[in-house]
């Protein structure tokens, strides 16, 4: 059938005759039927392979090879023994490199995640790391404070305002400030807002500075800048 030499058997082997199989050169009609039917079905079998291999790894299954390469494994697809070994070596090296890059990135991401988590509980404002409040003398100044819980535990905190001081020694007492809600309970990884309000009363115009702190959270502090404008008719 293909020019290969038979192994001395003109007919089919019997089960007891185990040995290296060679293509039968003298086929019976039934053997020929088996061979032809299997060849036909095998072609369709491979053609139905609808898996998409990654680019560059292999030809698409079912693609017909060039006529001079009956199995698509000839030199043109890089499977001469030496070249094939080189391709394997390069592929393994690339895989190792890709996994190294990936594991390095994952390690870096884990580190960043740990760093972020280690920051604990932090205050923040809509303006970033500084809470700016403004109001006219005799009125009220208000703003929003955010508290971020980057720990793995639930946190309860009672925010408070420190005394706010001007450059020339004037003070807005801590008692002028209040928070709504007065106490915050924040789940792990969550954030929660609170409104801060300062009653300006007899406060003189100027710039005052202080902090938002929280009872029970010694490391949390948000700088505050209070701008008090002069009201019309006042000086």
């Amino acid at each position, binding site marked *: 059938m293909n020019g290969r030499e038979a192994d001395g058997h003109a007919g089919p082997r019997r089960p007891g005759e*185990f040995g290296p*199989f060679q293509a039968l050169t003298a086929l019976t009609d039934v053997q020929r039927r088996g061979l032809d*039917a299997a060849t036909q079905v095998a072609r369709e079998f*491979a053609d139905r*392979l609808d898996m998409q291999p990654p680019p560059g790894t292999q030809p698409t299954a079912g693609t017909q090879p060039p006529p001079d390469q009956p199995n698509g494994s000839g030199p043109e697809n890089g499977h001469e023994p030496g070249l094939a070994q080189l391709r394997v070596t390069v592929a393994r090296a690339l895989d190792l490199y890709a996994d190294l890059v990936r594991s390095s990135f994952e390690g870096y991401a884990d580190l960043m995640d740990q760093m972020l988590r280690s920051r604990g509980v932090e205050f923040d404002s809509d303006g970033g790391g500084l809470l700016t409040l403004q109001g006219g003398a005799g009125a009220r100044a208000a703003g929003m404070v955010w508290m971020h819980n980057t720990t793995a535990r639930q946190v309860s905190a009672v925010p408070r305002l420190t005394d706010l001081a001007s450059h020339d020694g004037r003070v807005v007492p801590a008692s002028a400030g209040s928070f709504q809600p007065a106490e915050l309970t924040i789940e792990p990884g969550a954030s929660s807002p609170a409104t801060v309000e300062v009653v300006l009363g007899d406060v003189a115009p100027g710039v005052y500075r202080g902090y938002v702190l929280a009872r029970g959270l010694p490391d949390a502090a948000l700088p505050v800048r209070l701008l008090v404008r002069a009201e019309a008719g006042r000086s």
Partner: protein
Amino acid sequence: MTAAMELSDVEATLGHYSSLTRDAMQQYLRDRAPGRYLYDLVRDYPSRIGKGIRPSLLLATCQAFGGSIDQALGPAVAIELAHNAFLIHDDIEDDSRQRRGRPTLHRVHGTPVAINVGDALAVLAMQPLRDGTPLGTRLSQRVSDEFVHMLTRTIEGQAIELGWRADNVVDLEPTDYLELIGQKTCWYTTVWPLRVGALIGSAGTAPLDAITRFGFYLGAAFQIRDDLLNLVGMEAEYGKELLGDVREGKRTLMLIHLLGNASIDQRKSLIAFLDRAGKHSDLPDDSALDIDAEAILELMVHYGSLEFAFQFGQGVATAAYESFHDAFAHVPRSASRGFIEALIPYMLARVS
């Protein structure tokens, strides 16, 4: 190596690869709760030692393409676990009595429990593929993709066979049979082990078209032989009840040949038998069928259906031989390559 490889050599090599696979499999079959209703039973079929053709073919192909056993052991365990899951569910679907020389799981523990054990084995089969360390991310992903594809094709093939039996489809040709076993048997018995072994051994660079064709021919030869053994094998070696396929109405090559060659009256009787077999839950008892099955075997002998299947299988094996030399043309000669080549005659000669 190949020229000197005897049947006993092939079986010894199968035993070696099989043993490596079983050892690696143990970590997935450890004791845990619930033992009595699940994990003790999960270990049952894997403990009934089979030939281990699937993992052996995978490991040998990986080695032939330049890879190591360690790289391929995970997928080898995965296919063996999946195979055992398939066996449990197949035995239920066919209501088989014996598996590897012992009563089937569902006959001992009941169908609901057996279905669940099969499900558990199917899930466990995914576990060895999750550790991508030996292969790297890219190859691991590729092997997993191939695994899902293989499972899908196998289940589709099984569905077609069950459908033929339920609808009593009888107008079939040998090519229909080959297409069927290409799906239900070849994919998980030979095609997947060969493809994945080549992928791992070559780090994903081996062309797989010729490997796939070789896998189809080799698997087809395996199934034809398996069908013959079910009729004329030695029950003690074969491990399943003889004539089970006939009783279950399986569309084997011999049955298709008989349907095409029997007299009109015999064909009518045969079709009536197959109709009953396809609805086996309605049968009053199996003993009535045993007689019919014996009569069908006699008809198969009379009409030369067994000889037809035997010779047809030789034709398929000839295609396998040709295809092997395409698929492994540029793979250096080695013991593992020789073992794979020797599997071609082994498929025709095996007795279990």
